[in-house]
């Protein structure tokens, strides 16, 4: 059969007004259903006619999925809250500036107005072999085109390759891991809470998914505890252009520093593995150390231990190393 792209085939659109109705629809249509948030990832798949759901469940009319509220000492953010709101909300900017920075660097103002936090976290990888509809492992096939000897894999991973070498494209994922956020997932079985770093899964767990979400699941809320409110934050996204681009490597860190000494640290990077990577070894190595260039240097070296570049992405090693160093320096450059 011939291939045609950039032309959305017809589908049934459902616009439920409650989480319960949305879950009922997902259960009813099963694998033919598609959870639709802002559409910034979904439309690409549909336009290219590669993913062809027959029942699209648009979460845009469910009021309880939108908005930012204070809870205990932290925040609760509805998964359908736009990235623009996350980037500009005063509770977020004043206490969890790491997340507002990350959200504010996603794509473009138009995409941030339409795209949601939940969508940004749950989006699929941008590996161009996979997204071109090639029958790779992730698409259910039995080959990875991106790691072939002559493949174009400048954007691909240096860690965590497991048949698949794609990377997670989310800008907000690292910020939420650094903030120790919890993801609230609803399904017909009820509600469950998942640590941000466990929300993202690698190909070793399930090569066809980027997150724990399975058919019938909806990410409803992102809970940010107060643990890291007002900490010393650093976020940086390195991309080829300053807008409408995915990170080649991004870094997010939260540090609590007392008298020049790092008391607590959480740090995560993206663009280097099929999942956003929390750097436990770096966190362990810097905790208790003075915040200085020596500590930063050592952290950078530790961060890239075990990295394994592909043909065209060796540059990600020094890039990741340098970004981790920056994330630990007192003064951002």
């Amino acid at each position: 059969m011939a291939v045609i792209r950039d032309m959305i085939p017809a589908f049934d659109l459902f616009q439920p007004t409650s989480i319960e109705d949305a879950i009922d629809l997902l259960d009813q249509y099963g694998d033919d259903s598609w959870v639709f948030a802002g559409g910034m990832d979904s439309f690409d798949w549909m336009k290219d006619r590669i993913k062809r759901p027959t029942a699209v469940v648009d979460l845009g009319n469910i009021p309880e999925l939108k908005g930012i509220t204070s809870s205990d000492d932290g925040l609760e953010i509805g998964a359908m809250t736009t990235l623009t709101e996350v980037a500009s909300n005063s509770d977020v900017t004043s206490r969890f500036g790491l997340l507002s920075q990350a959200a504010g660097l996603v794509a473009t103002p138009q995409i941030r107005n339409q795209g949601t936090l939940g969508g940004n976290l749950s989006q699929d990888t941008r590996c161009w072999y996979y997204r071109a509809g090639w029958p790779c492992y992730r698409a259910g096939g039995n080959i990875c085109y991106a790691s072939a000897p002559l493949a174009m894999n400048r954007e691909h991973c240096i860690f965590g390759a497991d048949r698949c070498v794609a990377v997670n494209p989310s800008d907000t994922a690292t910020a939420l891991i650094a903030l120790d956020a919890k993801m609230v997932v609803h399904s017909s079985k009820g509600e469950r809470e998942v640590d941000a770093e466990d929300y993202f899964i690698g190909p070793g767990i399930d090569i066809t998914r980027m997150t724990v979400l399975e058919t019938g699941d909806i990410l409803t809320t992102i809970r940010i505890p107060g643990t890291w409110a007002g900490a010393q934050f650093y976020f940086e996204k390195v991309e080829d252009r300053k807008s409408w681009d995915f990170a080649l490597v991004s870094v997010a860190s939260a540090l609590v520093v007392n008298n020049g000494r790092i008391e607590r640290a959480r740090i995560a990077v993206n663009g280097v593995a099929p999942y956003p990577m929390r750097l436990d070894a770096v966190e362990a190595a810097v905790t208790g150390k003075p915040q200085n260039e020596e500590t930063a240097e050592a952290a950078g070296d530790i961060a890239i231990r075990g990295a394994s570049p592909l043909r065209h992405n060796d540059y990600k090693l020094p890039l990741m190393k340098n970004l981790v160093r920056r994330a630990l320096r007192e003064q951002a450059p």
Partner: protein
Amino acid sequence: MATIGQDIAPPDLVAKVTGRAKFAEDFRAEGMVFAKLLLSPMPHARVRRVDASEALAMPGVLGILRAEEVPQVDAPREACLTDEPLYEGEPVLAIAAVDETTAADAIDRIKVDFEPLPFVLDPLESLRPNGPDARIGGNYFFRPRGSDIAEFRSHKWTDADFAAAGEGQMPMGEPRTEWSVGDLDAGFDQADLVLDETIVHQTLSHHPMEPRSCMAYWQNGKLYIHPSTQSTARTAVGIARSMDLDPDDVVLIGPYCGGGFGSKISGSPTMLIPAVMSRKIGRPVMMRINRYEETYIGRSRPGFQARVKIGFRNDGRVTALDLYIVEDGGAYGSGDFNTAGTVASLSYQPLAMRLRGVSLYTNTPPRSAQRGPGGAQIVGMLEPIIDKAARQLGIDRVAIRELNAPDNNGWLGPQQGRLTSAYVREALAMGKEIFGWEEKSRLSGQRNGTKAIGVGVGLSPFVGGSTGYDGLVVIRPDGKLYVHQGIGNLGTHSMADTARAAADVLGLPWDRVEVVWGDTSKHLPWSSNQSGSQTIHAHTRANHAAGIDARRKLQQIAALDWGGSPGDYVVGGGRVYHRSNRNQGMTFGRAARRAIQLRGKFSGYEMDDDLNAMTVASVQALAGQGLIGAAKDNYGREGSTWTFVVGFALVELDVETGQVDIKEYTAVADCGTVIHPRSLAAQIHGGGVQGFGIARSQRWVYDPQWGVAFAKRFYTARPPGILDVPLEMKWGAVGIPDPQTPVGAKGIGEPPVGAGSAAITSAIADALGGQCLCRTPLTLDVILAALEGREQPYGPLETHV
């Protein structure tokens, strides 16, 4: 007050900013249906069999169009559909249906049996002794002048040629084209410094905002067509020729075009598809091209793999320039490398020069002119090498350009052609002043944290005008001047701005001038293509000539009615009157009515016999409607017209990430008389930004094993976004009129691109302490590998990455 030199909003502005402007896909016709394309999934294949039975049986599907049904062309040219696709994405067939969804679903259901054929993406691979050829039969088309031979042949180099090149150096076997000027050996003998560099310039898609959509229908034997095209009159003539129609039977309506950059000069091959489909199914057919399709069929700038050896005297004078370019001609060929050689000769005026080149077919999308074709590539690559020499010789980088730049006695190309004017030193001086070169160049290499400052300069010449077209103006009884324009409306404002030449000759304020454009049923004159930076030159001349013709007729009518000789009368303010008595005269409106009464040459019943047939037909159609001025541009010109733009940039390079931030940009043009300052600024800056993309970010990526493209969406192809552009960009114009054209203006569309690209490649090399990476785009991975002393992400000659 003269209109030339003033900022005057063009007449299409309000429609554009309010959204009322109709572009190709906005047109509608009664009963209109939609066409979709089936594109080749393979880089080279033969269609063995098509089974469209299931598709054609679908409700709402109206027909199919196959390659054998469309206008046929001789090899090696491109037809609008093919059964031997030569690149992934080449259109194979089209389906028409009542709506696009149905048409797309029908394409889904067509079974095509493709026989894969050998393919090649990299011309250097095709040059290897047993390397693959892009076409069945060869990698170039052999058609010597004055011979009947016309066939594909294979051009190969020997193993020894490849072995002779040093590690990572460009091999240089037998060229297909060669020219030289002066004694090259003597030139290198005189040199105190010789640089020898291998350079790679990436192929780049055009990415106009408006894809090449087209709607067409037939009425009473006439084809009505709404393509997305840069040119109007010339595109209509081309369509008539392709469709084997009388030019009168083609009505082209396209008053707006959302950018082309050389990719839509006379429309596109695919615009014939709705025309032929419409004739076949008897319904108006709209074919909307989406971004995915546009990247395949939307043309591209050919990449170069090249080697350059340049000799310099101690004072910086270029004594010898030896340039060898292998050009990626894509599926249907290109000749940018010739222009690149000419531009190099012009920029540096070497005492001796040689150009050798090979342009070969590859199984990648078609190439075409892209804003400064050949020129933008070569200046972006050579300018940092000139910097390298300046640094080694201890000469200021602007000074070395001043030393080598052409003046009015400059030469270019193998025939050592002459120029109408060149005020490059004046442009460099003005640019230094506006940019603040003396002070900024002292910042070179300074560090601010992890940011290293780089300062760059680039000189970019490009051809700036043609001659010999027709102007056509009508003064109607309403007293207004109607300037008929056969050029297109690419967004450059030249369709309005060139009309000013006629207005000023007639002393008419702009509010009394109507521009007639964008619709061939409105009787347009024979015009240049809207390309090659020709129009401001060609059509200020043609409209000047037509204005003079109208003025002469006004004077004659006044003399007839009021006595005396025509020379006693002058025009101004919408009247023609006696030079010694303002009351002895008449308004333009009255003169127009008199012209209609007088008939003959006054109102278009007679005309000059040197007008083009298209202009003749238009004058005949307009005859009797007013006083008609129609004339061919017979103004003389010796030599060719070239424009020069110098760009200056200050960048910050982050040594920990390789990211480059353009902080300041200034460009100054030697483009003769300034017609429209605001529009000129838009061209200088817009072209500069396009150059930033070439230098920094814009990509064209192919999987070499499968021969398929990946950078086919904006977000993967990465043309610059608004945040990649400095907040403030400055510009200037030398403003010295070109002495060989009546208005003094030279074209400006193209040379700003090379200036933007070269200023950035130069500034990046400067920030790297003078290290020229000799590759575009200079993405951060390439820069970071150099900074960290790691292996480069791509081989030195690797292309399509």
